[in-house]
């Protein structure tokens, strides 16, 4: 498993990277930490003619708080965000979800934005970003635009990004003081989840976000329910996600995980909210 041939561009500035994307269009792909995309290259599921490495663009390696949002640049590695001292205070859901993303050995290289760009349906960062109502900041040589993460991811590993655009940053709304919980089931801790669930418990209701079942992370806002009413709501959601059988799990098993993990994260989030 070796990548097909490509030109390698080591960009030093954002303008250089955007210039290459403008000139090469769909033949060029951005590589950041490479923890998803290098595997795609090795398996030749991706065969770009030009690879644009953005990890030497120092301006992208920043975590900032702007207007009630935590803005994470495209060069920020997962380990850096996990070690950020304000993470639990500003976006506790991400603090809970990030340790489930890959392993120490991949978080050290992989980026937050790269995980969102890859848009794997079972990945934790797209799930968290969508659960929190976060946005993706896209930029091309001509313009910049912001897209809600739920609109950015259009399906399994497919997104609303145009060929000449790259993710400059993603922004998580500051969301603290509510109850949060995250849990997933995988064959081995750190592997892609069979089902991943995040819950945010607010005063007037609970939001459940589920990854690994539909072709993108899906959210459901529920009123405060108990007992069989909650079971019924979870069961309805589990069926609406339209689970499919694959080599990892059956649709039946996935629905069962949505019902059970869904309930456990909701209960945990409500307990944390106090």
């Amino acid at each position, binding site marked *: 498993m070796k990548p097909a041939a*490509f030109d390698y561009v080591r960009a030093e500035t954002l303008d250089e990277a955007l210039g290459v994307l403008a000139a090469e269009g769909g033949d060029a792909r951005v590589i950041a930490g490479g*923890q998803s995309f290098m595997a795609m290259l090795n398996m030749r599921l991706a065969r770009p003619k030009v690879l644009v490495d953005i990890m030497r663009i120092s301006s992208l390696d920043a975590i900032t708080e702007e207007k009630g949002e935590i803005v994470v640049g495209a060069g920020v590695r997962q380990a850096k965000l996990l070690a950020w001292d304000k993470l639990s205070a500003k976006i506790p859901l991400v603090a809970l979800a990030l340790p489930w993303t890959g392993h120490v050995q991949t978080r050290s*290289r992989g980026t937050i934005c790269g995980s969102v760009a890859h848009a794997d349906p079972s990945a934790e960062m797209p799930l968290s970003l969508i659960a929190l109502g976060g946005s993706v900041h896209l930029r091309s040589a001509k313009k910049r635009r912001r897209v809600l993460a739920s609109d950015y991811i259009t399906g399994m590993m497919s997104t609303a990004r145009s060929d000449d655009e790259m993710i400059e940053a993603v922004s998580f709304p500051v969301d603290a003081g509510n109850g949060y919980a995250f849990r997933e089931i995988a064959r081995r801790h750190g592997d892609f989840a069979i089902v991943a669930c995040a819950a945010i418990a607010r005063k007037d209701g609970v939001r459940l976000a589920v990854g690994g079942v539909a072709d993108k992370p899906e959210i459901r806002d529920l009123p405060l329910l108990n007992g069989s009413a909650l079971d019924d709501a979870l069961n309805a959601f589990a069926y609406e996600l339209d689970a499919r059988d694959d080599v990892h799990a059956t649709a039946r098993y996935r629905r069962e995980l949505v019902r059970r993990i869904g309930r456990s994260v909701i209960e945990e989030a409500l307990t944390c909210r106090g």
Partner: protein
Amino acid sequence: MSRLKAGQKHTVRFSLNGKPVSGEAEPRMLLSDFLRHEIGATGTHVGCEHGVCGACTISVDGVPARSCLTLAVQVEGCDLRTVEGLAPAPDRLSVLQAAFRRHHALQCGFCTAGILMSLDTFLRGNPSPSEAQVRDLLSGHLCRCTGYTPIVNAVLEAASELASGPLGEEVSNV
């Protein structure tokens, strides 16, 4: 900005275990292959080539990295450490390596180079880890021989031994 052409070889320079090295690589060449075939450092093993098994893990600028998910051209100017850099002398094992030997923390040894490099970077930042932390770290590696428990025991013993001295210094080679 530099653009390295496909199909052509380009000089790549970096530091390997404290010594400057260089070689020639096409842009598509994986770092794991570059180390083994171009530099001749075959201590780093190659397993799955998509980041899952952990056999090819090395240290890049002090943090663990899958060398199969890294291009050789990406580490230009970086500081790399591989399993060849662990032993303080040709006839001596590091504290961690010696603990692996005592505890039978390897059998076939295929996964061991990667595991040692993960642990080496990990112990530098976490000198007294809990068993849970060690097991979390090991979740990034596949070992089909040991069942992991001997590895965990070796790490915990090495960590307590290292608490009284710097990594890789004091060794008993019995």
